């Protein structure tokens, strides 16, 4: 993407605030124009009043000396307020746009990208942009104007001295050019090493149980130490390079101002200038030198913001794989008839995971998928809820291709319980009512009862208002799982999807939930994946999958009737008919 294009896109987010922006720019220009005045006042004071003794001018010039800076400060506050408002709103809009986009991205993206990275981009990169979008952009404008007017003023006062001033500015810029590369290189190295250090700590924190049980604390600390030493070393080099740059800047600044000042004085001795001229000149020199440094800095900041913008737009440009057709039909509650018609699917081209599935599920039926790890059970569930689009064939819901439905309407037909249960850091009530915000107290309690978790919640001092998650109560895996099941029940979906939903529960609790579920699932279509065959015996259809194709299909009894069938084999082994023979 060209840089112009990027800038255009960033400002696209600020279009709403264009009046504020124009006002800020106008104020900046006014302020920059006013910056020429104070050195001229000083000059007039020194030359006219102190040197020539024109005492009648003293009061008037003195008043200007006092008043002009105050006026410009007041205007500066207005300008800064405007620029902060614009930049803050701009970044807020950008963040919101990205967050919205992220929430609609397909799971394929999240499988590829770690959540930590996404969060970093959303938060850190937008900050990097804000630092540039507010003040610095306006500084460019004001610096340009100030530099122009200061240049004209210095040439008007004495063009030879002005040439000397430009020589100093050239050295300034040269110093920046020579130094900045090293600084940038080492800044990158430090950031990279810090990332590695971060990743290391994160890794260790995720593996704390293993570290404790194998007693490898010392080894892990040594690894951290090694990485830390490298990071600190680069940090030292970067800081020293930075320091050298700034010390050079201040040396050039000091020597430059001194040279201008002393040259000016020599000219006074020669009678070519007055001392007031020299003072005004020094004032203008300060106005010209700092913009030169700032400008150089700004180039770096802009580069950084450019990288940040690039990464943000990469996120924004990440195609939403699952899109809604423009003529998508809305739907209320569906009956729950699901048809697979020669469904094919692959995550990566060439590696087909689902190889032609045909299946008819009538409303209210319970379908169980079983098979070895990697046979495509979970993928099928993802296809039904349209987390991915099929790559071949069609999937119909109530006789209509699921891609024809509005996405939001389609998804609200499902209640999904996943193997890895997520709880949000809020109250238990909100966690259960997540799928239906306006659920009544009664409905929440009913759902909790059905998921066999009500008694536990009721025993807590704050009951349903107990906070869970990061700052709250720590729950066991089984308890989390049951709250997740309660959440799905509470959403009152047409189709229930359970992906290993009860694997973390003991058989007793599982059986209890099973009983409750049969009630809940009575008039709903449901899809179940489970390792324990005992939990799916009562399913209307049991589908045995192997490498993306259906191997056996039917009810428990029908499948058991197949002599030497795969299901028969699996079931007898699993259920432990042979247990006591060992």
């Amino acid at each position, binding site marked *: 993407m060209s840089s112009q294009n990027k800038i255009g896109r960033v400002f696209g987010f600020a279009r709403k605030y264009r009046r504020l922006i124009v006002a800020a720019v106008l104020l900046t220009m006014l302020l920059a124009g006013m910056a020429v005045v104070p050195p001229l006042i000083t000059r007039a004071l020194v*030359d*006219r*009043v102190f*040197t*020539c*003794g024109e005492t009648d001018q*003293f009061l008037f010039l*003195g008043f200007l000396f006092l008043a002009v800076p105050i006026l410009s*400060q007041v205007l500066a506050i207005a300008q*800064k307020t405007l620029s902060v408002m614009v930049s803050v709103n701009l970044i*807020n809009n950008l963040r*919101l746009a990205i*967050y919205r986009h992220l*929430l609609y991205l397909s799971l394929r993206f999240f*499988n590829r990208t770690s*959540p*930590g990275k996404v*969060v970093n981009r959303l938060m850190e990169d937008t900050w990097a942009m804000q630092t540039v979008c507010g003040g610095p952009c306006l500084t460019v404008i004001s610096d340009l104007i100030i530099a122009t007017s200061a240049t004209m003023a210095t040439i008007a006062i004495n063009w030879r001295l002005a040439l000397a001033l430009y020589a100093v500015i050239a050295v300034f810029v040269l110093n920046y050019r020579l130094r900045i590369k090293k600084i940038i290189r080492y800044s990158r190295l430090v950031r990279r090493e*810090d990332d590695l250090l971060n990743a290391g*700590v*994160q*890794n260790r924190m*995720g*593996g704390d*149980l*293993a570290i*404790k*049980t*194998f*007693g490898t604390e010392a080894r892990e600390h040594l690894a951290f130490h090694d990485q*830390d030493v490298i990071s600190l070393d680069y940090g*030292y080099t970067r800081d*020293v390079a930075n320091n050298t740059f700034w010390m050079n800047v*201040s*040396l050039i600044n000091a*020597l430059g101002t001194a040279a201008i000042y*002393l040259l000016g004085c*020599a000219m006074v001795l020669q009678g070519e*200038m*007055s*001392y007031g001229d020299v003072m005004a000149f020094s004032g203008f020199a300060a106005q010209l030198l700092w913009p030169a440094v700032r400008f150089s800095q700004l180039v770096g900041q802009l580069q950084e913001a450019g990288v940040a913008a690039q990464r943000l737009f990469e996120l924004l440009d990440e195609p939403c794989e699952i899109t809604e057709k423009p003529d998508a039909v809305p739907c209320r509650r569906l009956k729950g008839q699901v048809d697979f018609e020669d469904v094919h699917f692959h995550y990566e081209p060439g590696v087909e995971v689902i190889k032609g599935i045909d299946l008819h599920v009538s409303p209210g039926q319970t379908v169980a998928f079983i098979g*070895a*790890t990697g046979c495509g059970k979970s993928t099928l569930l993802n296809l039904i809820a349209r987390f991915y689009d099929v790559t071949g064939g069609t999937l119909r819901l109530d006789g209509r291709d699921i891609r024809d439905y509005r996405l*939001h309407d389609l998804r609200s037909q499902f209640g*999904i319980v996943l193997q890895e249960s997520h709880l*949000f*850091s*809020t109250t238990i009530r909100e966690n259960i009512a*997540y799928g239906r915000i306006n659920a009544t107290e009664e409905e929440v309690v009913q759902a909790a009862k059905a998921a066999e978790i009500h008694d536990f919640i009721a025993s*807590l*001092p*704050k009951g349903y208002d107990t906070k869970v998650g990061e700052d709250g109560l720590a729950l066991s895996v*089984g308890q989390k799982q049951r709250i997740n099941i309660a959440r799905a029940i509470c959403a009152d979906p047409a189709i229930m999807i359970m992906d290993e939903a009860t694997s*973390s529960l003991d*058989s007793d609790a599982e059986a209890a939930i099973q009983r409750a579920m049969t009630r809940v699932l009575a008039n709903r279509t449901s899809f179940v994946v489970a*390792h324990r*065959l005992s939990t799916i015996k009562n399913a209307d259809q049991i589908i045995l999958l192997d490498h993306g194709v259906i191997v056996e299909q039917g009810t428990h009894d029908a499948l058991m009737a197949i002599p030497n069938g795969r299901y028969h084999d699996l079931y007898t082994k*699993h*259920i*432990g008919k042979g247990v006591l023979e060992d």
Partner: protein
Amino acid sequence: MLNFTREHFRDYPYRTPAHHGGNDAAGGALYWRFLREYLWPNRWALLLSILLVAVNANYSYVISYLNRVVVDSILVVGGETSEIPDTQVRLTAQDHIPVARHPPEVSQGRRIGLGVRFTNRPAEAGRKLFWLAVVYILTQFSFNFVARWAARRQIAVNQVILGKLREDLHQKVLDLSLSYHHRLGTGRLLSRIMSDTGAAKTALNEVISVGTRGASMLAGGVAILLVGDWRILMLLCACAPVFILLRKKTRPEVQRLQIEQRQTNSCIYGLVSQKMDAVKAVQSYGRERGEILAFHRLSSAYLRDAVRVEWYFMVTNFWTWLIVHLVNCVIFLYGGYLVLQGRMSLGKMLFLQSTANLLFQPVTDFTQLSFILQRLQVALARCFGVLDEPLEITEDPNAVPFPTPLCQGVAIEHLSFQYPAGSDASLTPEERERNRNHRQLVLDDVSLFVPAGQWLCIMGASGSGKTTLLHLLARLYTPTAGSIRFDGVDLQKIQFASLRERLGVVPQEAQIFSGSMRDNIAYGYLNATNQQILKAAAAAQMHDFIMEMPVQYETLIGEKGQSLSGGQRQRLSLARALLTNPDVLLLDDCTSALDANTERRIQETLATQLVGKTAIMVSQRISMAVRCHQIAVLADGHVAELGTHQQLMANNGFYAKLFREQTE
């Protein structure tokens, strides 16, 4: 936007309220400790750098003094009007202006300006100016190099302190028990180790440079004004209370807003990372719009506070600036008046004015210093908070090695356990107290004995304390009451290293590290040969699927590599434990995520691998339990049933029910 009284926008369910605390007394203790433990070892380097900064701070005074010399004794601008009558000056000047030097385009004003008494200038002005220039440049070079040196020393010391702080924290975090890790979570621990130490370093650097510079400049400036003109000093002193008042008024508000801001920020991070982790849940319940709203509200609250802080800063800065400017003008005009009266030379006036002007620098510096100190205090409090966390599990000084080989067995005697209280910030103290009483014992007076070489299977409903019992056996927690003995030796009295070596644990949720498959299997035994690794992998039924991967055992897994399914992870952690060949194995439901076939094969390999070892395993499977010598059923922290398969079947309790469920 600028309505400062409305605060409701921060009240939001996803935003836990910020804690406004931290008194200065605690701050003093923190600084003292930081000084003793981290700064004192580097005292000479620090002292040198402070000294250099102090010297360097007076640079500006030297330069303005040189300017005074130029004005008063070389150029001799204005000033002693009393010596020569006005008219004479003009006449003389005009007489001496050579025509060639003044082309016609030079303005009248300048011509007048140039009419300075040439007669008054010393004859050797040019030479004097030259020598002054030399002094000027030398001064600047020397000051600059002093500053460079100072900064380098400072940077080096900073890095050393940062490194020590970081490593101390890391070491401590590793040593802290799992319950602490669980309470804080990875993100917060990470921010303690990485960002808080970084913040402490930056703040320390600023404290030293800003503080030293301020003090040194203040001393220098006061000295100059005392000698030069005490009235100007008085004027400056009169301004000091205004500054203090200004700071007193705005600082608490700004501080409060910044605390709020930080809190909102961490809440946004929390919210976003949680939702990004669970995008599937958000999407499957169609809650995207709600989530955007939640994010919008938090983000807006943050930015609102940011704008307010900015506004406060601007207003405070404006008032500060205004005072400085007014005083500056007064001095300039007062000095100008004195010059016109002929009671002061122009050079001296300009020198005193710029000195007074420079004196405002330390005043603003000190205002800033309080903010910086605040930041340092917060960062230090967080760092030391971790460092001070008591270690729950420590090695006994008289610890003995693990009894090898284990002859008698593992005895669990009257073991009780209660998890430490969580830190639910939203609870009032009374509620917390109630909570504590309410929390029942996870394990209540459990006594078991496992003879050496025998296997015990622990069964029971979820939440009955099975995993807790295993964690206690591995000494990941300390029991509330009772003891665990290996061959009669109390677990608390066994050396850590030998305990970890002789005791293998296979957790329920297997943890993998970023790295290759091989590294992960060999995690507990770095020096394992390839043969041993292959054998362990094969025993855990993972050799086949590893060989199906393109680079087999070198496949990267974890953060940057391939992700493993739950079953694959369980097998990995089993292989890891088998490789270390421990005497005692603790297995925590390590086959729950496996399909029936793999589970069966693993059970068969376990049956051969565990021969001769002592094993305590948690399992839901009857097929595993029947292979064990003893079966214990836990219920609500008690041992409900204990015995062999036959005994428990005869008992007709939980176990028998489970057996029927799984074999019917």
